[in-house]
């Protein structure tokens, strides 16, 4: 046995435990679900298993539900720019020489670290239209009547006046509703989270002399941000935007399951929650796999566009 073969065998032995699991629970499922997407497989065995070609996809694209949930997914991602801008702002404020930076950083990171069912249940209580502290506060502090306060998680209203049931605009739908409630909660969770830490690291890596040079050129606070901080942080911002897109497109499942069960009138059902209900409540494995693959394709396409479009603006 040559030395080369021996090292290769050693390497494979090291790789094996992980690689077997990786193949069984990652690679094989991907291939398998692609195949299943073209069948009518259901776990309730009433119809014989059949290859149905593009039928699942045709059914999906011609159903209003799919497009509504597609729009919902996009709607819930509208909080992203606010969360990212907030993270950047917090990071800039925290990077100054201020006492207690570590304490503040810890406190800001708390919601991200504890995010999960417990926090979603908490926010469900906070948003309760009759007894929740948010509406009680709105009534007591701003003197609103019970009818004037938003119904939050039980309302189909939204700030863009999007119609319910069919795709379109309906002025009567203007207001604050379930989707906005989830966005606000999402910003609270994310603003002091991983993105802020990434920006903090990014800011720490900006060479000090760039600021000194811009100060000599007479740049003020805004000028320094516009011409030094922002361009220097472009790679970080780019990374954060790509990751947020990937996360946002497959998000919304836990919130929908715990807080709203996808309602009211399906307004908080995202694609991820739609796949869950199709696969695990209606057991339509074939159709759910088709939706999952459409979601994957969208994520893949957007990531590609981001890389092509974004890398032009990033100068390392």
């Amino acid at each position: 046995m040559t030395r080369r073969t021996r090292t290769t065998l050693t390497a494979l032995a090291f790789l094996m435990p992980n690689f077997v699991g990786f193949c069984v629970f990652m690679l094989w499922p991907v291939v398998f679900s692609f195949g299943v997407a073209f069948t009518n497989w259901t776990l309730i065995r009433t119809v014989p298993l059949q290859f149905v070609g593009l039928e699942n996809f045709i059914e999906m694209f011609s159903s209003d539900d799919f497009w509504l949930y597609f729009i919902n997914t996009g709607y819930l991602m509208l909080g992203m720019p606010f969360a990212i801008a907030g993270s950047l702002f917090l990071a800039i404020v925290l990077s100054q020489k201020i006492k207690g930076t570590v304490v503040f950083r810890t406190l800001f990171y708390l919601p991200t670290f504890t995010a999960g069912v417990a926090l979603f249940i908490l926010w469900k209580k906070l948003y309760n239209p009759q007894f929740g502290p948010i509406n009680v506060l709105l009534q007591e502090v701003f003197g609103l009547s019970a009818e004037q306060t938003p119904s939050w998680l039980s309302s189909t209203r939204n700030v863009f006046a999007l119609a319910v049931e069919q795709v379109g605009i309906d002025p009567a739908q203007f207001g604050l509703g379930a989707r906005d409630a989830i966005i606000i909660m999402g910003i609270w969770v994310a603003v002091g989270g991983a993105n802020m830490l990434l920006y903090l690291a990014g800011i720490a890596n900006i060479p000090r002399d760039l600021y000194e040079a811009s100060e000599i050129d007479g740049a003020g606070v805004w000028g320094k941000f516009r011409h030094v901080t922002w361009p220097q942080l472009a790679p970080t911002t780019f990374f954060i935007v790509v990751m947020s897109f990937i996360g946002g497109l497959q998000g919304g499942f836990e919130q929908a399951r715990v807080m709203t069960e996808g309602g009211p009138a399906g307004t908080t059902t995202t694609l991820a929650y739609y796949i869950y209900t199709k696969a695990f409540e209606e057991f339509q494995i074939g159709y759910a796999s088709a939706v999952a693959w459409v979601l994957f394709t969208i994520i893949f396409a957007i990531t590609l566009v981001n890389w092509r479009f974004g890398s032009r603006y990033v100068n390392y």
Partner: protein
Amino acid sequence: MSTTEQAVVGQGFSKWWFRKGKVYASFIFLILFALTTLTPFLWMINASMKPLEAVEDLSPIPTIEQQARFVETVALPQADPEYATLSEDEQIAYLFGILDISSIRETISQAFPDMAGSELVDMSTLTASLSSSEQQTLRAHLASTQFSLAQYYWHYLRRNYDDVWNSEDILFQRYYFNSLFIAMWVTLLQCFTSSLAAFAFARLEWPGRDSIFKLYLATMMIPGVVVMIPNYTLMVFLRLLDSYTGLIIPAAFTAFGTFLLRQFMLSIPPSLDEAATIDGASPWRVYWDVILPLARPGLIVLSIFTFMQNYQSFFWPLVLIKSEHLRTLPIGMLYFDTNYGNQTNLIMAASVMNIVPLIILFVLMQKYLVAGIQLGAVKG
């Protein structure tokens, strides 16, 4: 002093003030923002220490009526078991008995402002002159003088948390154990298999290494839901539905763990394992005695991520687990909220207990975690 010097000093002075002002403004902003972040948590903790009737109140201090009810139903019977056996008139007499004259006068003038100043301190004349609803008011005010906020919160804190922890409706301790047990096993397996694979990717030379690593990287973009459905059918096929094994094994292999540890191992100088190999160490010894100890920060970061992710994991246990005794905390919380949703104080107590391990973990491991998040992003 020339005028130019004065101008320079003046400019320096205003600049100094500007800097100072900016620091103070930032500090105030940070405190306000920290409060905004904390408010939901504070409400949660406060609600978890209240009786159900007071949960909707924003103020942490109960109203006179709530105070009186607490004193009469909890504090006084605790201090003197006889109190509960007394009639209403006797209870008023009892309250008169334990209070001194000046505090009785003060209480009366609070309860009935128009009576202030009159010399009605003889109990029987006073009670005789009051209607029965006025007597109730007087009793509430007298009782509320015995109210202690610390005792109130301590009582409901113990009661609510005990109700959840030893509940007969939900197996809270069991959920807790399941979550910790599963998260620990996944973390152990994940660290072990990932570090082995990372060693093969970062420290050994073999044909096909880079293409297999690219395969690992590529799968990191695949949404979880795509693989969840086939994995579920696989579990059906292997008869692992509703079992610890089914919860642990599929979660134990991720491309992310291998990727993260590879990054850490790449930063270890290659001369170290070369020296060990020349000294006759087997690849296993190099892995175990040289690389693993040096990759410790990476293992810690991966452990924290994996533990916290699996402790909070929701989708997989939700679809996999049917029996109650196998539910994890998030699933248990979901059904607790669905079935007993109106008991807000108990649900908040459960939520607090749910996130306490995470907060402890975070505070202890903060240093590693912050570094790890920043490193995990450097894949460019």
